[in-house]
């Protein structure tokens, strides 16, 4: 087991490396180098361009050096907590990330849990009661959930909130807590506000997981070991829960791994629409204004989050499936 976890963790190292290369390539792709855009922006803002500072910056990021050296400077800076500078905000990137990253992690994890909690029972129900009214209803809802872009659901909810209820569904905190320090009250407030974005981000993932769980379980329901369980005299409910559902969970857990990046991806757009105080609106902003160090840092962090999420899912899978554990 330990060997398995170690192997899984080791395997992720090249993945993380590749993710960082990709993020850095995105930083590098736009024409002109970083300091040039920085100087141009300062000038546009009517500020004095300090030649000494420009030279210092060029040196710091090694902009005259080859790609690989620049990459090295960037990545080794990150290991020391230095993500570069945001020229739009005139601040180190690491200062801008802080709380927002924390909220992003909370949002993604709660969405994952929500997805599990909803998809699992419904998937089981739909498979066991295949072709029943309930199965059809869930299938139709699921299909619509898959077909609707997340942001459209967010927009419609916003519209309904404003027009019908006269409330604002955006943000993650009530105004009185927005700038307050962490307290029990703030936490409860956060939970209340989380429900809507979690439900929106989770729709398409939940819809696809229901279908996967349903299909997995339908594959298992007619296996001989279910007949064995019935032949022992187990009740129908117990026979199904203890055996096929338990076994259908395995492929289900492995799909969770692929769902996590999907959730992070979906949360980006929903967070922008609902102006959540996560990293995503800031990232979009940075991308639109070509504030590349900031954007690159976010892309890197979100990718790392996805990869870590995958490793965790894989380890969970190994925990529940002895066939993997013993390999």
């Amino acid at each position, binding site marked *: 087991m330990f060997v398995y976890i170690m192997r899984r963790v080791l395997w992720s190292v090249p993945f993380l490396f590749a993710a960082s290369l990709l993020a850095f390539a995105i930083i590098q792709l736009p024409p002109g180098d970083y300091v040039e855009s920085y100087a141009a922006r300062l000038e546009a803002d009517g500020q004095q361009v300090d030649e000494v500072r420009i030279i210092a910056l060029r040196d710091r990021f090694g902009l005259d050096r080859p790609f690989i050296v620049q990459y090295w400077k960037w990545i080794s800076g990150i290991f020391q907590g230095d993500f570069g500078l945001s020229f739009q905000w005139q601040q180190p990137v690491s200062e801008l990330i802080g709380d927002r990253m924390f909220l992003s992690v909370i949002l993604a994890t709660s969405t994952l849990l929500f997805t599990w909690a909803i998809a699992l029972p419904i998937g089981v129900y739909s498979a066991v009661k295949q072709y029943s009214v309930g199965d059809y209803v869930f299938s139709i809802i699921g*299909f619509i959930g898959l077909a*609707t872009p997340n942001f459209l659901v967010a927009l419609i909810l916003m519209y309904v909130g404003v027009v019908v209820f006269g409330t604002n569904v955006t943000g993650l905190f009530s105004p009185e807590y927005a700038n307050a320090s962490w307290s029990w009250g703030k936490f409860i407030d956060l939970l209340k506000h989380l429900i809507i974005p979690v439900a929106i981000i989770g729709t398409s993932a939940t819809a696809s997981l229901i279908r996967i769980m349903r299909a997995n379980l339908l594959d298992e329901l007619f296996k001989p070991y279910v007949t064995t369980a019935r032949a022992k005299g187990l009740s129908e409910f117990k026979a199904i829960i203890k055996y096929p559902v338990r076994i259908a969970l395995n492929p289900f857990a492995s799909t969770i791994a692929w769902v996590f990046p999907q959730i992070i991806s979906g949360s980006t757009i929903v967070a922008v629409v609902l102006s959540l105080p996560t990293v995503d609106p800031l990232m979009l902003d940075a*991308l639109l204004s070509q504030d590349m160090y900031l954007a690159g840092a976010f*892309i890197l962090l979100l990718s790392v989050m996805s990869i870590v999420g995958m490793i965790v899912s894989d380890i969970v899978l190994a925990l529940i499936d002895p066939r993997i554990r013993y390999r």
Partner: protein
Amino acid sequence: MSNSLDQSSPMEFAEATQWQLMWRRFKKHKVALLSLYIVLLFYVVAAFSEFFQTYDPEETSRRDVFHPPQMIRLFEVNDAGNRQFRPHVLGMNLERDPITLASNYAVDPEERIYVTLFGRSDPYLLLGFIPMERRLIAAVDSDEKFFLFGADRLGRDMWSRTIAGTRVSMSIGLVGVALSLFLGTLIGGMAGYLGGWVDAVSTRAIELILSMPTIPIWLGLSATIPPNIDPLLRYFAITIILSLIGWTELARVVRGRFLALRTEDFVTAARLDGASPKRVIFRHMMPSLVSHIIASVSLAIPAMILAETSLSFLGLGLQQPTISWGVLLQESQNIRSIAQAPWLFVPGAFVMLVVLALNFLGDGLRDAADPYSQHSI
């Protein structure tokens, strides 16, 4: 074996090709069949979108800002008191509330704008080069305007804009999938056929891309497109970016089928019959792959459409003056506009309908893709 396959005569069944068997199986899937017709309809509309528009989608009108939608009424009661077939919409007048000064549209039941099929309109170029003067629906009096889906903040007709968006949104799905298909079959096929380190490397690459959050990376890549680039170039740049990530799913399908097929006895038999590797692949393996690829493609198109819509909605995909559903939905980002003009959501309904239909179609195709499997639908 034959239980689910057929009720037709044994002779016909015995000599049925895979496509005939697939079609028979597909036809049983009523929802998929309906979806096929819907998708075909959408592509027809996309191809001849100018004809289906009622006006030039770029035509602004200050008088008609946020004009609400008007419904076509098919019958009217004439002066003699008889119902007669005369399609029309009711006119609307802009009124200003004397106290709040807010503007409001009120229906004027007396004013009728008669519409007709294939009516005369302003001249336009179908497909960009065929001069035409008739549209599917037009006002009998071509000076009058009507708005089936309302108008946007510049008084542009949403029906015409949504129909115009059909072309871009539907085609970006096709072009993007074509590119993904090329990458996917090439990489997946090589991985599956060559095996060994090629397989190991490409499998890892696929896993890597699948473990990345797609939207942030798409956004990052499209942010690197220079802002003032030609709209057509931007269109291709976006499709390339979408397919750079979209090929993985297809590659996985191709590789998986390839690996499964490679060890099939009938493929070994073909090798022993003296078939060259090329012949083994194209004569013996391809026919089994094609149906699965078609099914995967029809499932990949809606994903592309959704991706384009999302990117454009965020302002990093296609941009004005290109009209796509995502670009149109960008208008609805502002909560105040949608509170005033909820019909700005209409392109979203189109996205849902098309994606839904493509998903059902793909599901039906996937179930029919292997007509030799034992299970029945």
